[in-house]
Each structure stands twice: as C-alpha cells, then as structure tokens.
C-alpha cells in the first residue's frame, strides 16, 4: 500500500554480484535443480495501474515480468506452465508465451470464478507437485527455489516478513511451521505472523484438496455473501488508513522484522485488545494525495482477482497441512505499475544474493553459544565446503569421526588428553554446524542426511560421556553412575522436547477450521465474541450508572478457577513480554541448555577440571533446565 520503494527491505548493498549473472557462475556452488514441481499455474489477471493490459506484461529488460518469471520456473525444472488471463488480454499473453517457448498454455476467463474453476480442472488432472502464483511477481530465482526445490515441503507457501505487512500480500498465521489461518480479500486472520507472497506449492497428495478448494471458492465468489462484502470493505478502509498514516509519517516500519505494531493487514481487528473494525476512522476523514488515491484504487481493483490468496484460505480451511518457506532477506515485490517495475529492477540488481543465502543458511533458532561463537565463522567454512563440492553428509561423517577422536582423547584420563579432547569436541561441534548450513546454502536436503545429522549429534555427545567416564576410571575416580545419570537426563529431556512438539502438532491438527464462507478464522471469531461481551457489559454498566472501569474483566462473576486462570495467563504474557529485551531472550535460551552450551560446558570443565566436575555441571544445569522448561510447558498446556 505504501510506495513501492518501501516494500524492499532496507539493506546495505554490497558490490553487485548475482549468482545467475555471468560473473557469478564460476564461483557459485553446486545447487541441485531436480524437477521438484511438474506444472505451474501463473495468474496474469491483475491489471496494470496505467491501463492497457495485465501487470504481468509490463516490460522487463528484453521481455516482460511474465517471461522473466516463466524463465525462472523452467530453470527450476517446471515442465509445463498454464497462464490464466482475461479474454481481452489473451492475444498479448499468447504472443508473450510463444516468445517464452517451452510448454506454456494460455487460458482466458471473464472473472475470478472462471480462474478458480480452471485451476480446479488443472489440479484434478495430471500428477506431481503444482505451483500456483501471480505472474507479476519480481523476486530472485533462489527465493522460488527455496520453496519449489525443498523436498521437505510437500505443500507450502513463500512467506515473508515477521510482524509487518507488505503491499499486495495478505497476512497469514503460522504455528510450529504450519499455517493455521490465512487472509484473503474476503478473509481476516487473527494475530498474523507472516505475509503470503503469492506463491503456493501443492504437493501431489494435496492436488485433490486444491481442486476441491478451488471449486468451493469459485461457487462462493459467483455470489458474494454479505460477510465477504463486509470484509472487503473493511480491508479497503484499512488500506486507506495505512496509506494515510504512511503519508503522515506514522508509517509502520517495514524495515526491520522486529516491529511490534500491526501492519495494515495485521488487522486492527486482529489485535485482541486493540481496535476493531468500528475503530477505524471513517473514510471521509482520511484525505489522501492523488498518488495515494490511485494506489488505493489499484489495490482495491486487484483484490477481487486475488485467486491465489483465496485458494490458500480454501486449502487451510479444508485442513490441509501447509508449511512455510521464508523469503528471508531476499527481494520480493508484486509490480503493478511501470514505476514499480523500475524500482524493482533497481533493487534486485543491487542484491548480493550469495551473501543473503549464506546468511540465511544460519539457523535463526540457534542458541547463544552457537550464534555468537560458532556461526560467525562456520558459515564461511560452509561456503568453502560448497565450493570444494563437499556434500553435507560427508561433512556430517567428518564431524562424527572428530567426535570419536575427542572421546578417545578423553578416555586417556591424562590432562593433555582432556585438553585435546576439549578442543576436538569443539571442532566436531563446528563441523556439525557446517553440515546444516551447507545443506541450507546449497539446498541439498535429504531425509537420510537429516536422520544422520540428528543421530550423529547424539552419538558425539554420548561418546564424549563414555570417554570421560573411562578416563576418570583410569585416573582412579570412577564416575559411571554420574555418566549414566547425565545420559539418562539428557535423553529424557530430548524425549520431553519431541513429545511436547508432537502434542502441539496433535492440538493444531485437532483445531477445527470454519468453512470458507466464513470471513473470520477460529480465533478472530472468538475475539469478536469476547469484545461483544465486553461491549454489552459496558453498556449494561452505563445503563446502571456505573463507570465501566469498575467492572471486572469478565461478564460473569469471576469464579476462583477463572481468577487463577487469569493470573497464570498474566504470568505467561509477562514471560513473553520480557523477550523483547534481547539480553533476556538470550538468557532464557541459555537456561534451557541447548547443544552449543552443553558442548561448551563439557569442553571447558573437562579441560580445566576433572570428568567428575563435568558430569556434576551437566546434571546441575540440565536438571535446572528441565524444571524450567517443564514449568513453562505445563503452564502453557493448562492455560491455553
């Protein structure tokens, strides 16, 4: 909604060197380009702002935005493409498709329900994965590859941003790597966590679900239910308000992902205790410049054609498992005007794609020690390994061999052995970080690789325990009972992590989804009900002549159980609020005793003291971490 320039992430631009560019090819590491997706459905239905055709046919270098995108798709192994457009633009799109070559078919329909029915047909026939996306997207090949070529994502979307919205992107809510709700022109999402960037990949097993969802949504769009109309009106008011705020300098920050405020799509309605639809200023009160008015018209005109967002809602509402592939710091935009194309071209050529990919290869969820003492240099080892052509599995194997050497050094029981073991264990841990980063950097994910990595991590740790215990026995201070306890504690802690994760997935899977006909999702409907109750209460209080502030939180007299529940909820939210302080967040991560901290603790205590001290530290820290995480999980399970 804001200017096209603002939709890019502000990022210091290194000297231009695109991977796909002529200069980059020699240095670029091997990346797998197997054929992960069989067919693409590209929507060239959004009109360009300046009139005269679809935005997808806006010129880009020698061709158009559409031909650039089709080229990227075929480069990623997509064998056939179907372009959906309007009858008036059919000729122009066909000419462009012919120029693009390959197996491109053009279909024309008069309106969005026709698009949806066509998608249903295409989805019902043929096998393999299918990708549905807008033809006016400008992004990096690697951004598309992250979704299309990742075998771990069967059905998923390209997602961007954290707390803030992007123009022409609807918001989604993810939980544990899975989408639980999504917005469309006609659907609201409660407390969104990311933006849907208009690329939906549907795995072979979900193609029937996609066809069903498309048919269903098509039937509804033929005659819009009042709830859908209301939601679109609300969106238009929200976009106007966002433009107004942007013009008056109170813009929501799109620059860093840390902003807490809701973006324009983040639904004034979506915030539990925040405003609601009625709280948006009346449209008449918000005067926009002519430029912004044009932008708003462009946005509202494009909204009803937003078949991909509607499909995503349809898929989620039918209970499909949709994962997320993150754009990270790469560039993405939907270009709906010639000006937007210009700024997109300017922005995207300035990107150091390799740098961004290397930085994104580092796991965002790592602990303190890993993030600050290992990742800063392990990523360069990963790049070096990629250029030498090493595979992640080879690096994993090297890592476990170093780990076994470390255990053997510990087993000597001598001081030099303990010091050498400590150093080797750190080397093993670093190479262990490298294999994952290498896999993400070169996109060489394999199921076996993931299994090996996980199993070998445990092997290294417990082999170190065995080595230390043998060494201690040789030195005349047997600690086998401590070693057994440390192993048992760590395994039980891991089992609790796995089990809690599985339990959460079970809960998410069991959460019912409302039908697509309904605008609000499960959570926004509940929030609306809470607000309505609160409003009724205030009105009742006003009628009785009392100030609303004197009222208790809930309408019914609070039962003791409710009060305890409210107190626990308060403790939990306070617990999450302190996360905003960076230091506290890192401290909380350290308390949980993640792998980096464990390996560091083993190395330090073994090198400086004795194996007995190592095990006592592991048991004390691990025991405290168990109680800490257990308390948090029980609280969250009970309060929910």
């Amino acid at each position, binding site marked *: 909604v804001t200017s096209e320039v603002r939709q890019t992430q502000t990022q210091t631009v290194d000297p231009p060197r695109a991977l796909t560019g002529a200069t980059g090819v020699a240095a670029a590491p091997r990346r797998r380009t197997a054929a992960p997706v069989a067919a693409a459905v590209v929507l060239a239905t959004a009109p360009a702002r300046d009139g005269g055709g679809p935005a997808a046919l806006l010129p880009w270098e020698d061709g158009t935005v559409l031909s650039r995108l089709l080229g990227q798709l075929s480069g990623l192994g997509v064998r056939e493409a179907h372009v959906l457009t309007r009858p008036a633009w059919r000729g122009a799109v066909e000419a462009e498709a012919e120029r693009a070559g390959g197996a491109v078919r053009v279909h024309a329909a008069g309106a969005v329900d026709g698009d949806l029915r066509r998608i249903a047909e295409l989805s019902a026939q043929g096998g393999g994965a299918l990708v549905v996306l807008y033809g006016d997207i400008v992004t990096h090949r690697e951004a598309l590859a992250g979704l299309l070529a990742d075998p771990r994502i069967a059905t998923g979307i390209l997602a961007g941003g954290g707390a803030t919205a992007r123009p022409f992107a609807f918001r989604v809510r993810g939980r544990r790597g899975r989408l639980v709700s999504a917005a469309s022109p006609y659907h609201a999402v409660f407390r969104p966590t990311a933006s849907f960037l208009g690329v939906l990949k549907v795995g072979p097993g979900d193609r029937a679900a996609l066809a069903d969802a498309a048919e269903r949504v098509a039937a509804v769009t033929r005659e819009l239910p009042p709830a859908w109309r209301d939601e679109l009106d609300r969106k238009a008011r929200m976009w106007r308000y966002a433009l107004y705020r942007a013009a008056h300098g109170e813009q929501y920050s799109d620059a860093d992902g840390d902003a807490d405020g809701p973006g324009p799509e983040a639904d004034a309605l979506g915030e539990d205790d925040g405003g609601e639809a009625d709280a948006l200023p009346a449209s008449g009160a918000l005067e926009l410049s002519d430029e912004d008015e044009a932008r708003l018209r462009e946005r509202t005109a494009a909204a009803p054609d937003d078949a991909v967002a509607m499909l995503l809602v349809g898929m989620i509402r039918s209970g499909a*498992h949709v994962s997320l592939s993150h754009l990270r710091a790469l560039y993405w935009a939907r270009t709906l005007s010639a000006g937007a194309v210009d700024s997109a071209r300017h922005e995207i050529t300035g990107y150091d794609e390799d740098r961004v990919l290397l930085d994104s290869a580092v796991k965002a969820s790592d602990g303190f020690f890993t993030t600050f003492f290992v990742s800063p240099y392990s990523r360069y080892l990963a790049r070096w390994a990629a250029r030498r052509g090493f595979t992640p599995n080879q690096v994993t194997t090297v890592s476990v061999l170093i780990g076994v050497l470390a255990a053997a050094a510990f087993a000597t029981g001598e001081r030099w052995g303990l010091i050498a073991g400590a150093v080797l264990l750190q080397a093993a841990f670093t190479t262990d970080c490298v294999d994952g980063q290498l896999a993400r950097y070169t996109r060489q994910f394999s*199921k076996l690789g993931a*299994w090996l990595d996980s199993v070998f991590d445990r092997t290294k740790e417990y082999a170190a325990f*065995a080595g230390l215990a043998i060494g201690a026995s040789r030195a005349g201070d047997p600690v*086998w*009972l401590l070693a057994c306890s440390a*192993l048992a504690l760590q395994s039980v802690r891991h089992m*609790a992590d796995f089990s809690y994760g599985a339990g959460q997935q079970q809960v998410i899977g069991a959460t019912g989804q409302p039908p697509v006909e309904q605008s609000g999702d499960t959570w926004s409907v509940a929030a609306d009900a809470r607000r309505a109750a609160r409003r009724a209460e205030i009105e009742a209080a006003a009628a009785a002549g009392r100030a609303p502030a004197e009222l208790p939180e809930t309408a019914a007299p609070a039962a003791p159980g409710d009060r305890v529940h409210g107190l626990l909820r308060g403790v939990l939210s306070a617990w999450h609020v302190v996360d905003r302080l960076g230091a506290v967040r890192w401290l909380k991560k350290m308390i949980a005793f993640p792998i980096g901290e464990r390996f560091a603790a083993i190395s330090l205590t073994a090198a400086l003291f004795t194996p007995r001290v190592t095990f006592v530290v592991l048991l004390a820290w691990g025991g405290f971490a168990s109680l800490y995480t257990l308390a948090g999980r*029980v609280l969250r399970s009970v309060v*929910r």
Partner: protein
Amino acid sequence: VSAAAATATGPHAATERPSTLAVYRDDGPLARALGRALPREIARRPSVLLALPGVLGLVAALAVGGADTPRGAAAAVLAWLVAWTGASSGASHRDRLAWAAPPLVRLGEYAGLVWIATLHGGAAEPAAFALLCALAFRHYDLVYRLRHQGATPAAWVDALSLGWEGRLVLAFVLLVVGALPAAYFAWAALLAVVFVGEAVVSWVRHSRGQRTVEYEDEEDEGQ
C-alpha cells in the same frame, strides 16, 4: 516439522497407525495388556495421571533406599512402576498434558535400569551405561525415523526389544540370577547390533526406493 512427521500425525494416518506419542512411549506387550485392562472411565483420564504415581514411587525408592534397597522391596517398587505407568498406555493421549507421559515412561525405564545395576554394585555401572547407550539409540531412532522417513522400526525389532516394562523385568531377573555385569554387556551388544543394523537396512531400502523415482524423473526430463 517435516512433511513426513505431518503425514504420520495426520488425520488419515491416525486411524491406521498408532499416534506419535504412543510410538514414543515404546510400550511392550505387558504394558499394552495393562492398558487394555483399564476400566472405561479411567481410560478417559489423562495418561500422565497414571504414569506419574509409578515414576514417583521409583524416585522415592531411589531417594530412600538407593543402592542398599533389599531385593524384595525393589521388586515391589518395580512392580508398582510397571503397573501404574504401564496401565497409562491405555489412557487418553489426546488431552492437554498428553505430551508429559512419554518422557515419564523414559525416566522410569532408564532410572530403573540404572538402579538395578547399582543394586548389584559399582561393577555393574559401566554395563548399565552401555545398555542405556543401546536403548537411547532406539529411542532417538523412533523419533527421527518417524520424522524423516515416516516409518517405525520393523515389528520383529519391537518384539525383540520387549518394550520398556519387559526390559525392566528382564533386568531384574538377570540381577536375581546373579548374571549382572556380563549379562548387561551382552544384552547391550545384542541390542546395539539389532537396532543399528535394522536402521541402516531401513535407510538403504528407503533410499533405493527414492533413487528409482529420481531416475524416472531424469528420464522424463530428457524427453
């Protein structure tokens, strides 16, 4: 969470396959029989309510008697653990605290096996460590294989591994017949060979299956 784990926990899989949490528990025939024998009204209760008393009993025995507990008392404590925690296999795995049962089962099993070794004396402790290593491999493999391959170990491996309660019973029998340090080592070696061997075989089979698919893909691409 990978797609494989998702399919394993998905609504379609739930009816044919045991739930993920049930796999993590690693129950044997005895625990499952106890679970099936639960009256209906108790089976609806959260599994953690049954698993917890069993494990607390063991922890209390460790704190009070420790390595000096008489064998008869130890047998009673282990029976108490197997009865309660085993019966929890038949209780609800769908409640809010369902995730708490599998780690409790693991805690009971590992603590019990180490305790039995200490009842024999310090010489059995390295053997207990070896046994725990072999079992830890199985338990991590249960999780990771389900997550990355969408499969669980072969049925004969499950049968041979006896389940956690079967292992506790066997360990106590080995203690009573005086076979301890050696028998624990031999048992650990046998389990390690079986668990690791079967995991490797399953991955070889799995990647062979994958490779054919990839090969066909390449042929298609060439056309």
